């Protein structure tokens, strides 16, 4: 496809949706409003016109797939024959699956916690320093770039050359200058997971930082001033006032990052492709979507396991939504 053709279909694609809304509403406007009956018909059709595209997309891309994935998890690799719990049994006994779920759990424990912690500390530091907003910008920047881009950046830092060569990776260069042997960091089982997590923390700290910065402004200045006058140290203020005050925000950010980490795929796919025991569920799932011609049963089981991770969050969100509706 030439670039010109591409440009054309992009234009056409966007125009299609604008035209749909404009033409259908134009027709409705010229039909309705002439009598009460017509007015009512117009209004009910209008609801459908407004909702239909989004609803169809929602149905086709989210609702139907959720149920279809659940169904497929009980079927064979082609989705044709019912096999009961076979795929689930396979998963439980599969060493790769166990490794992935373990890695996912460690990711879930480490990344949201450290990102939230760093975000909170940095937001607090930057809030009181005149060049704080520049610092925030810099630390926030990784949020804008892709996981794959971040992967390249960090792969360059972890780059390994044999002991006889000049190290061009920053980490090994530091290690060598301290008198140690260079290491192929990404191939050391267990530890390599943490080197991958460092990338995610590097990215997500920015998210925590900006949300905390906004939240910090809501803490009454008088309260902090009063504490300072009473001679409380900044450390004491941080633990006794700021953290309790931001409890809700901490929880929100922690959940937000948890959801992102749960379906982490790109970093591992780009850096190690799940080798050296770094695989997580999303990578294993991608693998099974195509391995051996694809196995929709096993792939679906893996998707469901990821889904199970978000169900508590989903239930909590719905509960909170219901509370808000009541008010």
């Amino acid at each position, binding site marked *: *496809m030439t*670039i010109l053709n*591409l440009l054309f*279909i*992009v234009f056409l694609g*966007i125009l299609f949706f604008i035209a749909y*809304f404009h033409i259908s509403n134009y027709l*409705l406007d010229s039909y309705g409003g002439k009598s009460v009956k017509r007015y009512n018909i117009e*209004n009910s059709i209008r*609801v459908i016109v*407004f*909702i239909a595209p*989004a*609803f169809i*997309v*929602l149905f*086709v*891309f989210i*609702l139907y*797939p*959720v149920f279809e*994935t659940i169904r*497929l998890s009980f079927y064979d690799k082609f989705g044709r024959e019912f096999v009961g719990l076979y795929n689930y049994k396979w998963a439980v006994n599969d060493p790769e699956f166990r490794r992935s779920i373990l890695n996912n759990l460690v990711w879930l424990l480490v990344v949201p916690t450290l990102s939230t912690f760093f975000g909170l*500390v940095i937001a607090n*530091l*930057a809030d*009181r*320093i*005149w060049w704080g907003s520049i*610092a925030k910008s810099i630390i*926030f920047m990784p*949020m*804008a*770039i*892709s*996981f*794959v*881009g971040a992967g*390249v950046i960090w792969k*360059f*830092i972890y780059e390994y050359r044999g002991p006889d*060569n000049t190290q*061009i990776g*920053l980490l090994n*260069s530091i290690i060598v200058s301290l008198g140690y042997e260079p290491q192929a960091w990404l191939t050391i089982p267990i530890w390599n997971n943490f080197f991958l997590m460092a990338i995610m923390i590097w990215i997500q700290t920015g*998210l925590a930082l900006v949300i905390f910065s906004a939240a910090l402004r809501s803490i009454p200045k008088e309260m902090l001033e009063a504490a300072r006058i009473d001679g409380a*140290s900044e450390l004491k203020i941080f633990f006794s006032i700021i953290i309790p005050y931001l409890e809700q925000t901490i929880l929100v950010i922690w959940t*937000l990052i948890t*959801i*992102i980490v749960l379906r982490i795929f*790109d970093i591992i796919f*780009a850096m190690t492709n799940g080798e050296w025991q770094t695989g997580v569920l*999303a990578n294993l799932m991608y693998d099974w*979507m195509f391995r051996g011609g694809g196995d929709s049963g096993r792939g*679906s089981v893996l998707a469901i396991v990821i*889904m199970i991770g*978000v169900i508590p969050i989903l239930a909590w*969100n*719905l509960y909170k*939504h219901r509370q808000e509706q009541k008010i």
Partner: protein
Amino acid sequence: MKKISLSSILSQLLLLFFVIVWLIPTFGLFISSLRDKDLLAISGWWTALTTTEINEIYRMSGMEAQIEEDGYFKIKGTLFEENSGKKIESFGINSKKINEFMIGDIAIFKNESEVILDQDGNYEWRSKSEFQNKKGKRLFTTSLSPPSFTFENYREVLFKEGIGRAFVNTMAVALPSTLIPLIICSFFAYSLTWMKFFGRDTLLAIIIASLVVPLQMSLIPILSIYNDFGALFGVAAKSYPGVWMAHTGFGLASTTFLLRNFLKSLPNEMMEAAKVDGASHYDIFLRIIIPLSIPAFASIFILQFLWCWNDLLVGLVFLDQVPSEIILTAKLKELLGSRGENWEILTTGAFVSMTVPLFIFFALQRYFIRGLVAGSVKG
């Protein structure tokens, strides 16, 4: 400035430490993308401003280049590219003794031909008898290279490695994938906020639930729908419109949710007044809602655009990995596999892929942050 206390100095130092740690990785990538590829391969980017010693192997020209002069057969030439700035320190004609000769020495091969070399890499290889070598002999050089920065890597990556085309492809994926959900979700959010109909609350609850559904739940069924659709109508299963709609689907819940939160904050009286004046919902939408929503649109546009631009999984699953369809992130991943040692290509490619996000980041940071703070939850 307030009084300078120990704790304030400590917090400044601590923050400075964080800033440096966070900045260095990206900075290193950027510097590396501008360095000469030969230097990049053998020295760390932090030495970019110093002179580097390089060992290289070159081959002189073969017999076709020989001329007869002063009773000798001579082959003349130069080892380095023009303006390389490299200065030879020592050289050798044997891989075991690469530092055997200094500039000005005459190196003699086994066949009694001789070679002299100046420090700019110009050589003269001469022999009493005619050269029979199809290929020239090898020279091992040790030279000092001054700091060298170049845009050559960018030219190489954009036009030879296919990153340029991938850039266009990514734009063709990201732009509609952002505008389409914005268009359809603004109507959707409007009706969820200002229109009364049966099942509205249920629909809203579904949106809230969909916010956190991981997109992995959708991949297999949608891929199979696309395959069936492609087979039924005899078109390609993987296509740009397919990716747009997939991104629209995955971004629908968060876009609708954010827009609805915004619309809810608009005063009800305004809509009522317009309705009394006989405005239809579409009039209200065009004349009142859209102008008021521009800041919200901007935030949501940026979030969704960055999401689509930076995505890998959707582009990997729903597009063919061919030059006319591959997106930047997928291309980078491919290069990581095939050109894993060519850091000039990887660093430059990564930086090219980051240009658009970084531009948006610096130009529109306010809207970006506002969108995130408004509670971006993405499945």
